[in-house]
């Protein structure tokens, strides 16, 4: 059994606990234990914090990594924003001695030192590259046959490609393969790789413009006949789920398109019941989807 320190971030534990719960439960089926990560904080939010001070952003990210280094555990996470903060901090501080020195001089004030002794992995990367689509397929009890999934990769999982391991960000396939492994269909839709609009602090700075981007995506997904949106980022998740309510208020456009994090979809396919996956906590009702599956 492989153990990871489970880095939660903010939105999953504090807005969509179902994402947190489903990640832990579904991973156990693959002998992966996501253990409590004591004392972790916000990653911190790359858009907001990086924008104010990159060194503070790196230092706060490094603080989280150091906590895990002390326990000698690799980090697993389920949020693209956290992935940007922690993966890049880890990767850059390992690669660039000067930057490492600078950040460690900041950490010295709290008697921490970045060692570069652990890895930071996104759970979707672990599922695809370590577990593999075959094992994922084997774990399916309720095949999601006939479900049209509009996949949203999210930006910080793939980009910048020079600072990632997934290759070109134009036409990735691995997420699609993981969804298809559950029996569902990954549908192509216009501007599939487009941002959800929330990042960079824009959702809090200019909500209307952030929602305008989400609106375009939601429209394209609906046009392509999506039954559900599936993401791997609680912040994109919030933008696309709660965003639909806000879009309804602000622009009057209605989609009622259910939004699931991949681990929640995986949970359904593994036969877990919707409540233990926290689906009832979503703004947009998941019922139409459940009806289609059951």
């Amino acid at each position, binding site marked *: 059994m492989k153990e990871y320190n489970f880095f939660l971030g903010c939105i999953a534990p504090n807005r969509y606990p179902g994402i947190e719960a489903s990640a832990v439960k579904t991973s156990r089926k693959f002998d992966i234990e996501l253990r409590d990560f004591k004392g972790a904080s916000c990653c911190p939010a790359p858009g907001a914090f990086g924008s104010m001070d990159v060194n503070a952003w790196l230092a706060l990210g490094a603080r989280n990594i150091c906590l895990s280094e002390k326990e000698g555990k690799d980090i697993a996470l389920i949020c693209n924003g956290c992935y940007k903060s922690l993966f890049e901090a880890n990767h850059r501080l390992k690669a660039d001695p000067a930057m490492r020195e600078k950040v460690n001089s900041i950490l010295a004030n709290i008697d921490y030192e970045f060692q570069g002794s652990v890895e930071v992995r996104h759970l979707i990367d672990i599922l695809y590259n370590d577990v593999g689509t075959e094992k994922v397929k084997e774990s399916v009890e309720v095949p999601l046959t006939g479900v049209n999934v509009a996949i949203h990769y999210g930006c910080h999982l793939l980009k910048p*490609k*020079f600072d990632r391991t997934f290759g*070109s960000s*134009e*036409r990735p396939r691995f997420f699609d393969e993981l969804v298809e492994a559950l029996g569902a269909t990954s549908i*192509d839709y*216009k501007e599939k790789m487009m941002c959800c609009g929330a990042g960079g602090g824009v959702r809090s700075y200019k909500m209307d413009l952030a929602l305008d981007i989400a609106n375009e995506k939601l429209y394209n997904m609906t046009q392509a006949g999506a039954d559900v949106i599936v993401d791997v980022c609680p912040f994109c998740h919030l933008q696309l789920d709660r965003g639909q309510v806000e879009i309804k208020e602000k622009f009057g456009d209605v989609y009622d398109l259910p939004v699931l994090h991949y681990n929640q979809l995986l949970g359904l396919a593994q036969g877990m019941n919707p409540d233990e996956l926290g689906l009832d906590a979503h703004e947009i009702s998941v019922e139409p989807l459940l009806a289609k599956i059951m």
Partner: protein
Amino acid sequence: MDEEKRIGVFICHCGTNIAGVIDVKELAEYAKTLPNVAHAEDYTYVCSTPGQTMIKDRIKEHNLNGTVVAACSPRLHEPTFRKATEEGGVNQFLFSMANIREQDTWVHMEEPEKALQKAKDVVRMEVARASMLEPLTPKTVPVEKAALVIGAGIAGIQASLELADAGIKTYLVEKEPSIGGMMSRLDKTFPTLDCSQCILTPKMVDVERNPNIELMTYSEVDDISGYIGNFDVTIREKSRYVYEDKCNGCGKCQEVCPVSRPNEFDLGLQPRKAAYVPFPQAVPLKFTIDMDSCIKCDLCKGQEACGDLEAIDFDKPDKLTTVKVGTIIVATGFDMYDVERKEEWGYKVFDNVVTGIEFERLIGASGPTGGNVVRPSDGQKPKSVGFVLCAGSRDQDEEDGAKPYCSRVCCMYSLKHAHQLIEKIPGCVPYLFYMDIRSFGKAYEEFYYRIQNEGGKFIRGRVARITEDPVTKNLTITAEDTLLGTPLEMEVDLVVLANAVVPAESTQKLKTLLTLSNSPDGWLLEAHPKLNPMSTTTDGVFLAGMCQGPRDIPDVVAHAAAAAAAASIPIHKGSVTLEPIYAIVDQEHCGGCATCIGVCPYGATELNEVDGKLVASVNEAKCKGCGTCGSACPSGAIKMQHFTNEQIMSEIEAFAQGW
């Protein structure tokens, strides 16, 4: 050797290049204090005629028996000063050169004091070396009155015709079944709009007819050994499974052949048979059977096909030929950048995104559509066509295999394509997405005006992405009009990617065979980028056309003619003088251990029995003077002339006297 050494040292100012950084007077004064130095002085330009005369005069005045010039790099002016020394009556190999420009004043400009110290050290080292140098006599070898040209695109064709017309027997080797290369795929040529085939075909025919040219198509160079004047070349003529002498090009075998596969010549846009010629004007007009796809149905051998001609033989083997040539011209051309790797443009994902060279076949009269430009998706005539310039050129993204350089042809051929569309399809509007239009050649900028006048639309912005409407198969180009400062989304019927030219894969093997180098961009490296772009660092080997770097047709032809002229010089002289820089064996000390036999890459060292004992000897004709044997010989019996242990050791000792 025993006479007292009297060395003259000449310090060059090179204008301000050297004198502007270090105190040349002080350097000259310092030189005078060195052992064996009989005379030292500085002069503005030692390489000038008065400078060289100065060397000759001083040799006589001071009765010098060795010279050192401290100036630029020996790779630039060593020959000049050797000549001056020789003319002054001193053996040219008693000259040595101190590089105080390229490797001193130009790279230590901010530290004149340290640069001066370095200059003193270098001069001291060269004086020490000069004191140990020995007189040598250059050896002269005859030159084979024949040349080899590798690659029969327009570059190789031009070079071969020039050589042949100069009365030189020329072997022209082409790996494809026909000569003509990339130019034979083009429809028109910019800016004159000459029909490419019309101007190329006559030359192709000349090649076939010229008695001095021995054409070897469907052939590749297997091996090359020897040196300038005397290269031994092994050529593999791949079997066509057709006897060239019997085949009359009637094409009946092609008619009956049931196999169909994409024609490489048309980039797969139309099919060919297993028995085929790549295109109608092929030279030679001999059929080739592609055994990879042949199903051996024997129809082509039947009476209603080849029949009594009996030109076809499925068992015909490859043929190896060895030829001797004096000089070699490499004209292996280029490949097109694999633009599929730029996923944002959707090449090979979207039907109606084609490359520039594919467009040439689409609009060429001899092409799959007989010259009617139509959309691959539905055969409809496009009413609006987007051109993506710099598709893989001027792009630093190595991950995508893109190239940082300008490909020098894409702007102009895209302008040409725009013109052809306007001419052929009334109402069709070409939109050229560009960063800069580089119309640098004769009548090129005027051609740009012309296309603008004809209605071509120019949008200054690089294409960020192309998307396809799954239903209409129309394409949407996303780019910023940087002059308006507005992002655009423009729907067009067809997109042409003007993809970059890249070094040819097939050149790599030759590069090794001929010990050539390449520049960082991957193209073959010339001897001098400005003054000798057609020669290489391997004597007797020359470059023609794109293999050395991106060029358009007029430049390729000029380059090829230049290469041919350069390659014909040694042949017409009939002999070349080789540096006497070869190893010799002191058979007294040789223990016959044969270590040198193992290390010599040219098999120049051999063991012979000399009065009862086995001793090594060096074949000076084969030896190229690398000195590897000299450093390997355990008994120090091998002497690497002009780079002897004594000479190098004396430099090292002099080096140590600097502190």
